[in-house]
């Protein structure tokens, strides 16, 4: 069965970033240098070849796309300046856009100008919607949720989360459709389902094992707090911590333990979690933004609107959230805090809504790819060989 060559794929990919892989002559230096290349995961050469001959389905179902942390070593060693690292980043954008069936991903990736316009309009709509439902701005105390009702935030938040979960699930199904066929997962074979899940979540996602051990070989050897894996982990921990703190706060409100917006001391556990996570997020995103602004290394040299939108939204939501928190512990009146809260909620909501369509979607796809990569069949127990006779 032969596969038809499809030259258009490479042209399509070019809309998603810096794609120079025509220059590639398949020498495999990128695979040789890639710290993640293993026997069954030879990339990025394989992905580049898929792009060159137009194996669209194979490219879209490559878990290797998502295993890459874009250290940039392949680009540095490429003898043809074909920029494999940048290609992988563009291909991830392409994949995100194609796992999504709404077409929003395509718009956000392929039309930088309209992407920005869209994001601004979405922000204005969200802000306008909330502003029309605003209440009073108490002067003597900081009654944030009298200005924007907690219930409104909760309802929008829950709706957005459900939407994001459904869109993410849809994307994962699209990703898996091809990958399951290709990876040769079979029914009737026992896999290390649970062990792989635990490994993926704790060692890889939270522990950043591969990033830390394999993908961060910066020859300048910066201090730990400037290492690429730590900056990435700091951002991710911050994001997940804030997500957890917000959810817990919502849960305590639902359970009637504490009303949303009720004053708590800074050391109360959920507030403390939120505060620390916020600091991590701000640290991670700030350093990332500085690195992209100064083009500090290979992986920050080339930035797309997607890269920027993702970072700036996280940074802004972190900064505005932190400002609101500061206002809470300052003596009233802090009238600016009401507006700050509005901005914070708008940006956080917008970021949440755009997760499945932007670079942010890698939280779904990379996790799934890492899980698939960790899945191994459990070998059938074979009877112990009878020891050879001693006579």
């Amino acid at each position, binding site marked *: 069965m032969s596969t038809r060559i499809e030259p258009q794929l490479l042209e399509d990919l070019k809309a998603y970033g810096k794609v120079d892989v025509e220059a590639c002559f398949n020498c495999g230096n990128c695979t040789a240098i890639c710290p993640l290349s293993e026997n069954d995961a030879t990339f990025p050469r394989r992905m580049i070849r898929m792009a060159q*001959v137009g*194996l669209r389905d194979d490219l879209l179902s490559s878990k290797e796309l998502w295993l890459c942390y874009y250290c940039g070593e392949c680009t540095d060693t490429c003898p043809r300046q074909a920029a494999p690292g940048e290609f992988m980043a563009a291909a991830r954008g392409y994949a995100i856009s194609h796992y999504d069936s709404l077409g929003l991903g395509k718009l956000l990736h392929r039309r930088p100008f309209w992407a920005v316009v869209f994001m601004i309009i979405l922000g204005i709509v969200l802000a306008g919607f909330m502003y029309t439902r605003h209440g009073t701005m108490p002067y003597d105390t900081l009654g944030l949720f009298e200005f924007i009702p907690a219930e409104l935030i909760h309802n929008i938040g829950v709706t957005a989360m459900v939407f994001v979960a459904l869109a993410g699930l849809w994307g994962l199904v699209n990703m898996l459709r091809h990958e399951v066929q290709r990876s040769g997962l079979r029914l009737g074979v026992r896999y290390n389902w649970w062990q792989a899940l635990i490994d993926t979540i704790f060692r890889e996602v939270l522990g950043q094992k591969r990033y830390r051990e394999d993908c961060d070989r910066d020859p300048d050897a910066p201090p730990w707090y400037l290492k690429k894996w730590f900056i990435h982990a700091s951002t991710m921990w911050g994001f997940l911590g804030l997500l957890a703190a917000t959810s817990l706060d919502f849960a305590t409100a639902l359970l009637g333990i504490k009303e949303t917006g009720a004053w708590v001391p800074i050391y109360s556990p959920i507030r403390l979690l939120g505060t620390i996570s916020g600091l991590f997020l701000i640290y991670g995103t700030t350093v990332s933004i500085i690195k992209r602004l100064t083009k500090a290394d290979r992986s920050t040299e080339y930035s797309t609107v997607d890269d920027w939108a993702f970072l700036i939204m996280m940074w802004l939501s972190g900064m505005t959230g932190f400002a609101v928190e500061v206002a809470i512990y300052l003596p009233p009146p802090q009238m600016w805090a009401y507006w700050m809260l509005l901005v914070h909620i708008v940006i956080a909501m917008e970021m949440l809504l755009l997760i499945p369509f932007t670079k942010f979607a890698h939280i779904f796809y990379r996790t799934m790819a890492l899980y698939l990569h960790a899945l191994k069949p459990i070998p059938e127990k074979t009877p112990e060989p009878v020891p050879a006779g001693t006579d």
Partner: protein
Amino acid sequence: MSEKDIRIGAYVCYCGGNISDVVDCEQVAETLRGLPNVVVVRTDLSMCSDAGQSLIEEDIKEKGVNRVVVGACAPSLHEVTFRKAVARAGLNPYLYHHVCLREQDSWVHQSNPDEATAKAGRLMLAGIAKARMLEQLDTIRLEAEQHALVIGGGIAGLRTAWDAAQRGIRVTLIEKSPFLGGHMAQLETIFPTGENARQALHELIEKVVSHFLVTVYTNAELTSARGYMGDFRVTITAQPRGVAEDFAHFDEAAAACPVEVPDDFNYGLTTRKAIYLRYPDAIPNTPAIDWKACTRCGECKKVNGTGIDLDGKPQTIDLTVGAVVVATGFQPYQPREGEFGYGQFPEVVTLPQMIRLMTMQEGNGKLTWNGHPVNNIALIHCVGSREIPGVHEPQEDGRVNDYCSRICCTATLQMTNELHERFPYINLFDLHEDIRTYSRGHEDIYTEASKNGVRFLRFHGDERPEVTAAPPDDTSPLLVRVKDYLTWGKELEVPADLVVLATGMMPNPVSDIVKLLKITEGNDRFLLEVHPKLQPVETAVPGVILAGTAQGPMNIQETCSAASAAAAKVGVLLGQGQVSLEPFVARVNHDLCDGSGQCVAVCAYEDAIALEPVLVDGKTVQKAVVSPANCVGCGVCVSVCPNHAIDVQGWTLEQYEAMVDAITADLPKLEVVE
């Protein structure tokens, strides 16, 4: 000269340590001292140095040395050096014998210095034994005609003719077809300079044909040849052109001609008449009659009664030339019917055809072929090259072209670049086994193709792509299936509106010339040189020289290098007006020869030895007579002569026997080392 007058000088060279680090040169010298006839024995750090050579010269002049033996490096390196030193001192240069102590001894016996020293002694003793029997010899000098025949009017022949004429050698250039320029005239843009092929070619042709030392015959072939270097007697047969130079009604005559044949200038893509000009500004710019196609119906003559002669007779020209340059060129490989769909689908063309097709396609708009728009082109490398015996179908002569044709990779990529420039919307697929853009500047052509987005697919030599008809509802008429090893051996399907076969080079069929000149062709049918590295343009027949693609696949640049080398070689051979040959040829002792003729029967060289009537005691008898110009001194005749009547000068049987005796004799002085 009686035995006691022989005064031998023996010299053992240290070769700067190359010999003396292993062989005890002083002990070897000691062994030689006092031997009969040996009057001087010396060692030296470097005999080939000026000082070393002066030693020999002084000994000849002052000590009356009249035979010289030097034990040193290989004779191929310095035998001539020492012969010249001997001659400078006034002695016959062939009274010299060279013993190889380096390659044959010190270098190969480094772990065994004692035995090596003993061997060196024996080799020297053998040399001295031979030296006692050396006799004066004279180089064979032949008058050389300062005139070269160049066969082939393509770029190789033209370039050779120009260079040789510039050196002052008269040149007769013959071209089989009615027009000069060969295959280069059929090219357009040539890599890596991007010049126009015909423009560059015409500049050279104009220079050559107007040179006062060059005579050109078109429609001409070599029909007989004999003789030897410096004195070849050749006959050229020139067919009439059929059209007078001042004939001015070509267009009408061509319109009137009822015969239409495939135009080989366009590789059969178009047709032409039996009266034709190869291309509008072809040189000579006089039309010619294609005698193979012409039916002599006379229609062309009716447009204008004069200027066309259909009854002309061939003209023969006899010449004496000193050297012959074979520049007979190549023909592109002609794919078999059905090979990659060639001849089966009109959308399959060869690269030479594609080059013509590109010229016929006007403008830079849309490329069409057979009335269909062309959006996808697949170019397949190595067609008729690098074939594997047992895998690929052999040709009529049972052989496959297992060689690389060298030019096709760059030519194919150059084609993709031209296509991309003129028709940027076309998808280009390059199917190759390997890509060898080996020459200076050629890699840039690959890089450009790569940047242009040419998709490269790589197959294994034994799994060549398959060209098939596409289903009727497909966008392209053909599908090329290829197992692409860059895509981990996956079978890919390439849609193609045009398939271009990068056909290789085959030599023009020149068996008649090969036979006439007694040169040889290799297993690949290309003409064979004596030594691929050190004598790259000479054939085994002295005075017959190769130029260009008759010898192997070359691009224009390499062809010109080869042609200039051939011309330089002609200059070397004929520049002095005479040719000197080494005297090591067979010599017949007529007192012993009984005319059995066995020597004549075994001799592999034409006219080297023959039975001729010789007057002996008033009677005429048949005796073997050697023609020194044709003899190469191989010694086969010596081995078959029942009467030991033949010897090779300088290497007689007597000399060999003396050497063998010396090598095997008891040598008390040397046994000491054991």
